[in-house]
């Protein structure tokens, strides 16, 4: 049995079925991310004054990733336009460029995640908090690089303020490395989603977005590789498939356009 309306438009909608389908799917995605955005708003406005962490993420890296995703949005639409112009070689080139951009985005995001997962935060028996990257660990002590210390009651988000205070000569340690005896540690964690609600919502939002990037990249890579055979047998249906996968990719870009300022800049 042949699937109807894969190329020609349905008389009632004026569109081929896959296009209506992807827009219905994207509508459900809007509500999915909308629910998480509203969770973010509630957590943000519910945080005590000065306790919501800011400046913990790397803005230049986030900006580069934003540019990478914007560029991929252009290459994906150029791939579709190339098919419309009957230029299969250019389509392949733009499609490959999109996959490379997607890989770059995921690699940069992985680097950011790794940076957070290796950032240790310890609360000491004397009521001070020390955080920094773990460089050495034994049965007796750990060594943190570029540690910053401040009263534990200030919370994880106080780190940027503590660094500024250290630069102005206030009483905060900001040495190259610091050895901490395990016996002096009351609580120890890393900057993963378990650290606090800021990191929980950060990892949830960016993790879900990254899954969308990976899924979209797999589909785009398939149509760049084995799936591109369809161009020889049914070029119109193939072009429609590229348009549909492109619509999904643009949605992924749209979500990041809002995630970047909310998580990195505000």
């Amino acid at each position: 049995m042949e699937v109807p309306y894969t190329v020609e438009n349905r008389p009632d909608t004026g569109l081929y079925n896959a296009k209506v389908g992807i827009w219905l799917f994207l509508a459900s995605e809007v509500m999915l991310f909308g629910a998480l955005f509203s969770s973010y708003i509630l957590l943000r406005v519910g945080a005590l004054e000065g306790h919501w962490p800011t400046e913990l993420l790397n803005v230049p890296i986030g900006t580069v990733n934003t540019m990478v995703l914007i560029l991929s949005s252009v290459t994906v639409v150029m791939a579709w336009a190339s098919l419309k112009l009957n230029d299969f070689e250019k389509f392949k080139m733009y499609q490959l460029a999109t996959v490379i951009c997607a890989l770059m985005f995921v690699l940069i995001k992985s680097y950011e995640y790794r940076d957070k997962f290796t950032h240790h935060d310890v609360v000491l028996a004397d009521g001070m908090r020390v955080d920094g990257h773990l460089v050495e660990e034994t049965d007796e002590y750990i060594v943190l690089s570029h540690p910053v210390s401040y009263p534990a009651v200030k919370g994880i988000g106080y780190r940027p303020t503590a660094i500024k205070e250290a630069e102005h000569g206030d009483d905060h340690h900001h040495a190259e490395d610091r050895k901490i005896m395990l016996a002096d540690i009351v609580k120890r964690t890393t900057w993963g989603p378990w650290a606090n609600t800021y990191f929980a919502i950060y990892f949830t939002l960016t993790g879900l977005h990254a899954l969308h990037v990976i899924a979209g990249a797999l589909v785009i890579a398939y149509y760049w590789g084995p799936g591109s055979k369809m161009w020889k047998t049914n070029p119109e249906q193939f072009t429609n498939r590229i348009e549909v996968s492109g619509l999904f990719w643009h949605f992924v870009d749209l979500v990041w356009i809002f995630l970047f300022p909310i998580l990195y800049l505000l």
Partner: protein
Amino acid sequence: MSGHGPEEIKKTVRTYLKVLGVLVVGTIVTVGASYIHFESMAMTVGLALLIASVKAGFVALYFMHLIDEKKVIYQLLGLTTFFFLGLMVLTIWASGDKPMNTVMP
């Protein structure tokens, strides 16, 4: 997108490149604006979301072809916008009952 002739597509390609320029400039402005210290937090959030909305608008209108789409898609998106805004308004409305102290030291 209704017009799919080669000339139409070539013209559209030029538009895509212009939109790329707008998005790059928009990103730079967003980052730059984050370094401006506004008295009100609402002003900072409002400006960031305004720039993001303009960028998103360009992506949706030109890359997703919403500038020239069929009525059924607009109807579908109208319904989505209604429910999305409802979700956001209800969230803000409920902020009086917000869970306090959501980030513990």
